[in-house]
Every structure is written in structure tokens, then in C-alpha cells.
């Protein structure tokens, strides 16, 4: 797994308050991890800062699962 993916998973596990090892790509951000609007903002800002990238509104709107985030970051 790349460094980018590791960073992504660390940020998600911290915000969702779950162990890094329990995260699976198919997990849904809202239904499974309880990522509400404020937490989603935290997630996006922290990932942008950690990986020095910018996420567009269109990209953000498509993010529904852990796997969606990983795919997006791998493609950048």
C-alpha cells in the first residue's frame, strides 16, 4: 500500500474514531463510519493539507466510501 493510502487511512481512522486495521474499502463514510457534514469537512481539509492537493466539489460529491477516497488519491 502506498504512503498516500496510508495517510488517507490514518486520517479516516482518526476522524471516525475506529482502528486503522478495521477500515475496509467497501465501508460507507456516512452509514458505516458516521462521517457527518462537519466531519466530512474535517476529512477533506485534513487530507488536502496532508497530501498537498486540492479536491474539487465534484470530486468531493462522489466520495461515498473508503475505497472512493483511496481511488481518488491514488489517481492524483
Amino acid at each position: 500500500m502506498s504512503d498516500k493510502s496510508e495517510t488517507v487511512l490514518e486520517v479516516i481512522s482518526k476522524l471516525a474514531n475506529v482502528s486503522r486495521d478495521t477500515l475496509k474499502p467497501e465501508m460507507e463514510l456516512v452509514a458505516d463510519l458516521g462521517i457527518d457534514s462537519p466531519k466530512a469537512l474535517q476529512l477533506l481539509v485534513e487530507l488536502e493539507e496532508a497530501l498537498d492537493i486540492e479536491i474539487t466539489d465534484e470530486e468531493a460529491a462522489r466520495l461515498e466510501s473508503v475505497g472512493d477516497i483511496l481511488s481518488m488519491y491514488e489517481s492524483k
Partner: protein
Amino acid sequence: MKAEANISLKARFFAGLLTLLKKLLSLTYRVESFEGQERWETILKENTPVLLTAWHNRVFYLSIMIKREIVRRGFKLAIMTSLSKDGQIGAAMGMISGARVVRGSPSRGGTEGFRRFYRLMKKEGYSIVILPDGSKGPKYEAKMGVVVMAQLTKCPIIPMSFSADRYWEIPSWDKMIIPKPFARISVVIGDDILVDRDADEQALESSRKSVEQVLMEMNARAKALISKG
């Protein structure tokens, strides 16, 4: 999503009517005491981003007070209104006031709305208004959005409240307070509430409770000031 694009003619008409009504009422009000006026003046003078925060039912008079400063001093302010029909009227009223309007609510379009707020503060230097028990309550229960926004932007939360010696209480979920004509008014601006950038979930929850407590104390303080008068 542009706020302007989602506002019907009907909503604009009602917004215009309500703005006129607010203007007429405001001409009759008399601010009898203003606690924290020095801090308020500094905020307006510096025009650097802050999070103006009040309970939803206190927005009627506070919005009159803030609008005056947008017009008079070019205070850069953004507001968020919900994507509902009521939100359309709020959005139109915000635009008439000269505020930047962001549409969204925790249940619909919330993340996008919060991101727009965040960018307006960080990149364009706007202050924002956040009503922490809005847009649907429960009344006097602060949600997490205000403290997360303060954490990420590193901008202070400025708690605000007001009271009036005579007012109508609208039978809405928040029991909106509208001062009656010729009401005497007291305004209270509280001390800055700062949220550490590295705050964990527990610290954020503690800040959320602190916002709740301070806003309740300020309601009581504003009421006490007007009672004395």
C-alpha cells in the same frame, strides 16, 4: 451551486417585503445597553474573519445590527441558509443585505455548504454567521459545525445575544423573538471562544458544550440588562 440560481421570484418578493418590515421596525428600536461594544467595534474595524454565533431565535434583531455594518463599513460577511423553501427567503434576504449567501444544511448539501464557508473564510477573508441550533433545532442545542469550523479556520467564535423589554415570540421550533415596535433592546457580545487546531474529538465536544453554556449565559445576561433598565 449559486444561491441566486435557486431563488424563486415569489421568495424574492417575500424577502423584499420582510426586509422592508424589518427596516421599519428597526427604526423604532432603542438600544439601551451594549455589553462588549468595544470588541464589536474592533471586529468591524479589523474586518478579519470571525464566526458570529447566536441561537437561531435571536437572529431577527442581530441580523438588523449586522446588516447595518455591511452597508456602512463594508463588513465582509457570508451566511448559510437551508435548501428548503424557507431557506430561499432567507437567502434572498441575505443577498438584499449585501451578504454572500451559501446554501446548505446538515441534512442536505451540508458538506458542500461548509466547504464554501471554509473557503470564503480562508481564501477571501469573509466572516460568517453560524446559528448552532439551526436550521431545525432542537432549540438551544449546539451542533458540532461551529466548533469544527473554528478549529479548521483557526478563527474565533464570537458569541452574541440580545433581549428586548417587549417582543413577540413566534410559534416556530425555535420560538423566534421579534422585538415589538419601540422596544428597548440590550445587546451582548461575549469573549472570543478559540478552538485548538489539534483538538481531538473530546476537546471538540468540550468546546461545543462551552458554546452552548456561553450562549445561554448571554441570553440571561441580556435579559438582566434590559430588566434593570
